Structure formats: structure tokens, C-alpha cells
């Protein structure tokens, strides 16, 4: 199996994230994208290549135009990983919750409600 380029690597760059934002709502021509940046057309092409290889962008040729379309499904992988990391912290709050119950018992005895 050929290793696909890493989605993380692809979105780690601010320019590439901006490109995804730009084409998230509707596909855009490569030239239109390049015009919005202060870098060379080649640099943008290179960014698009990384995004394409990561499966985040597909490019469709229409006559002389190259339309770039965002494939946002790929980003779900990232958000699933973020969720996993969030759960790591949620578990800390779970532990705090459990500890508070213990503290309450120590302080107020077992009368949970009537206090």
C-alpha cells in the first residue's frame, strides 16, 4: 500500500488552511486562489499538490481552468483524533467529580441531600 500523505501535515500550514477555507463553500479556479495570496503561483501549486495528495482537495480540469474542490470528509479523521484528546481531559474532570463526592461525604457526612 502506498502511504497517503498525512492529513495533519497538510493542514499544519496556515496558507493551506486558508486555501481550504476559501474553497470549502464552493470550488474555485487555481488562478483565483493564487491571486488572493502574496506568494508565487508556483508556491500555491505546491500547496495544492500537498492538499491533493492528502486527499483534502481534488482538482478538475474544465477547458483551461483547473477547479479545486475541498474534500472535507478527510478532516473528520482529524476531528476524531481531537475528540480522543478531549476525552483525555474530560476524564480528568470525571476524576474531579468523583473526588468531590468523596470530599462532600467527608465534610458533611453521608447525608447527601438533606444538608
Amino acid at each position, binding site marked *: 500500500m502506498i502511504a497517503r500523505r498525512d492529513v*495533519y501535515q497538510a*493542514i*499544519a500550514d*496556515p496558507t493551506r*488552511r*486558508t486555501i481550504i*477555507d476559501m474553497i470549502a463553500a464552493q470550488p474555485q479556479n487555481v488562478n483565483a486562489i493564487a491571486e488572493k495570496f502574496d506568494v508565487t503561483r508556483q508556491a500555491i501549486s505546491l500547496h495544492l499538490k500537498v492538499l491533493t495528495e492528502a486527499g483534502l482537495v481534488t482538482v478538475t480540469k474544465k477547458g483551461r481552468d483547473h477547479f479545486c474542490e475541498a474534500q472535507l470528509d478527510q478532516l473528520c479523521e*482529524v476531528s476524531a*483524533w*481531537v475528540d*480522543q*484528546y*478531549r476525552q*483525555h*481531559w*474530560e*476524564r*480528568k*474532570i470525571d*476524576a*474531579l*467529580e*468523583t*473526588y*468531590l*463526592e468523596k*470530599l*462532600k461525604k467527608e*465534610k458533611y457526612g453521608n447525608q447527601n441531600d438533606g444538608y
Partner: protein
Amino acid sequence: METKMMDTKDRELLMTRKLNAPVALVWEAWSNSAHIASWWGPNDFTTTISKMDLRPGGEWNLVMHGPDGTDYDNKSIFREVVPLKKIVYEHLSYPSFLTTVEFEDLGEQTLLKWHMLFESAEVFLQVVKTYKADKGLEQNVEKLEVYLSKMK
């Protein structure tokens, strides 16, 4: 531009929880090092707090001891401390992030807002990715252990 408004969206985590305890008790569990050591680490970890100087500029040093004997040093500095309301601290060890914990008094309950802001989306992604890699590794080790026990 839209990105300005959502400036921190790609490098933050926000967790909220309604806790079934009055704010004074939640504050105590958070601000007293003897208490915090009892719940801070992951389940199979223990925590030693060598310093917890709860005031702006004060240091907070803790070591989490992993089940395999590995120690994880955590150094932080408190940036803002408002008793019964708010604690802001900056985690100085890698990965660097700013945590804001807010406590809202709801009588017998407390609304806890736990916000973590990483220095950049790059760092945040790296952390998430490393965590995922660690998780994967953990699961692999577990699988290996199960496998080995079957071989015996």
C-alpha cells in the same frame, strides 16, 4: 475576514461540566495541592506536587508517575487567580498551552468551564497527533500482551 473572528478555533479545547458540589468545595479541590494530587493524574497514575504557589506569577510544579515507572514533569505558572471564580495558568513544559478554569456559582452546583489554548494550530495538531499515536501504541501493547498470554 472570517478567520479573524474564529482566530483560536483551530487551537483550543473547551470543556464545560455542571458539578454536583458548591463552588467553595470545587475551589478547595482545585486550589489545595493535597486535594488536587488526589484527582489530577490519569487513573493509573499518581501525582506528586512539589510546589503550588497559587497567585499570579506563582510556580506550579508537579510530577505524574506513570504505571510503568516513567515520570512526567509538568511545570506551569499561574497567570491569574480570582478566588472562587477563576484560575489561569500557563503550562511551560512541552506542549505549551494556556488553561483558563472558571467556576460559576450555581448554589449547590458549580458550572466548571475548562478552556485550553495552544500557542499555535501546529502545536495543537502535533499534540493531538502524538496523543493518537500514543493511544495506538498503548492498544498495540495491550494486544501484544493478550496475544502473549494466549501463547503461554
